[in-house]
């Protein structure tokens, strides 16, 4: 990921910054210009909780080149208490144990690296809730 793009996404990736629509109250992650529910354009900044529940998941055995060292790894759609849904890896456990309904905590981790000389891209991953 090129450096400017990674930099632009820091608030959402590092701090889970989201937007709450002033019109309908929907929490949109990451922030957008228009609300996907009511098309409102007035938002207030809100932070997602660093926890959630698995909606659905898989274990990626055949990974893209950049992620091959980590395979097999679990990826899940996680819903936070605010109702936002995000896709994330679930780590620090047996990937096969990740199933819908599982409670997770979100933690700050290295997500990908741009080769040996490029930038390091950080963000969130899920781990089993304590």
């Amino acid at each position, binding site marked *: *990921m090129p450096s400017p793009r990674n930099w632009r996404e820091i608030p959402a990736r590092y701090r889970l910054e989201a937007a709450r629509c002033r019109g309908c109250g929907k929490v949109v992650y990451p922030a957008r210009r228009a609300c996907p529910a009511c098309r409102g354009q007035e938002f207030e900044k809100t932070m997602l909780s660093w926890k959630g529940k698995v909606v*659905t998941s898989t274990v990626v055995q055949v*990974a893209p080149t950049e992620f091959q060292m980590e395979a097999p790894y679990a990826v*899940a759609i996680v819903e936070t208490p605010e109702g936002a849904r*995000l896709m994330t890896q679930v780590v620090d456990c047996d990937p096969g144990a990740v199933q819908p309904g599982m409670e997770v905590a979100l933690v700050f981790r290295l997500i990908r690296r741009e080769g040996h000389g490029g930038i390091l891209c950080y963000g969130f991953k899920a781990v089993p809730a304590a």
Partner: protein
Amino acid sequence: MREVAIVSAGMTRFGELWESSLRDLFAEAALEALAAAKVDRLDSIVVGCMSGGQFVGQEHIGPLMADQIGMAGVAATHVESACASGGVALRTAFLEVASGASDLVLAAGVEKMTDGADVTAVLATAADQELEAFHGITFPGLYAMIARAHMQANGTTEEDLAWVAVKNHRHGALNPKAQFAREVKLEEVMKSSMVSDPLRLLCCSPVSDGAAAVLLCPLEHAKRYTDHPVKIRGTGLATSTMALADRKDPAFLDAVQLSGERAYKMAGVGPADIQVAEVHDCFAIAEICCIEALGLVEKGAGRHAARTGLTALGGKIPVNTSGGLKSKGHPVGATGIAQAIEIFEQLRGGAGARQVKGARIGLAQNMGGSGASSVVHVFEGV
């Protein structure tokens, strides 16, 4: 709007075609379609291709392809909607003819996937880059999540998925252009390696090269080019949220439903009128979801359809008689056109051993990404 017909088709074999380049593939299919209709001029060319840029480093596909068939000068457009690029190219060509802007339009699809690109990574660019691909999800991974959600909601099993592969390979074994024209046994599918839990290798479509092309003209001109034209009665294109996470129900492909409703409405038919269908079985779970969303079976009943033979040749509503993406192959940009060709042949009695007897109305559904775009066409033999 004018009524529009398909009057001829051309298609390469699908597979790992080491001897053919992107341009060779297109030219082979396009020239075959032109020759079949004895046409030496075109008003316009519409080419569907997902990612010439990433697979072979080639953009600006429109003029390149016009030039390759000796038609530099003709209007040429490249359309992209990931794996639905072919279907959207057909729709674009249809609208161009229906509007009266052009009389003779070639709708084509092409993809060259085996030239050494990181296919998993290229395909993943059809997912949301910022929200999905960034985290290491793959296309099999996205459909595996859809499968797991479908299993949770409907009790679908790994065996139900495997039956889709068994059925489509049985069909594909009858298709000389299929990449894997052979039958597979249920046990073989169930024992194949896991790609993304719960999707096994034999529940996934292959990486393929190939091209397909159809020639469109106003229905009133069709008999100049063929004795057996097929009319395009309806077209429907719909979108859903780009990210799977943003769908209320990850097990339901709402864009497929919406695109189907639009095509049915325009055609003035309903699901019960469809006698043969090609649907986007990039993964076995996708066929189950698509036949449900298109109303070909009841919601939740899709999982039984392949096993019971409902969607097999000889069944009530044969689905993917070509072998589907699973057995025929899935050169992504070409798929939507290849689906239309299978229905075109079925409706004019040219499908050989795969012929659905007396089929008059058929449907083709082509999907992009994890279902963020879907395009449906309803055809009628005339």
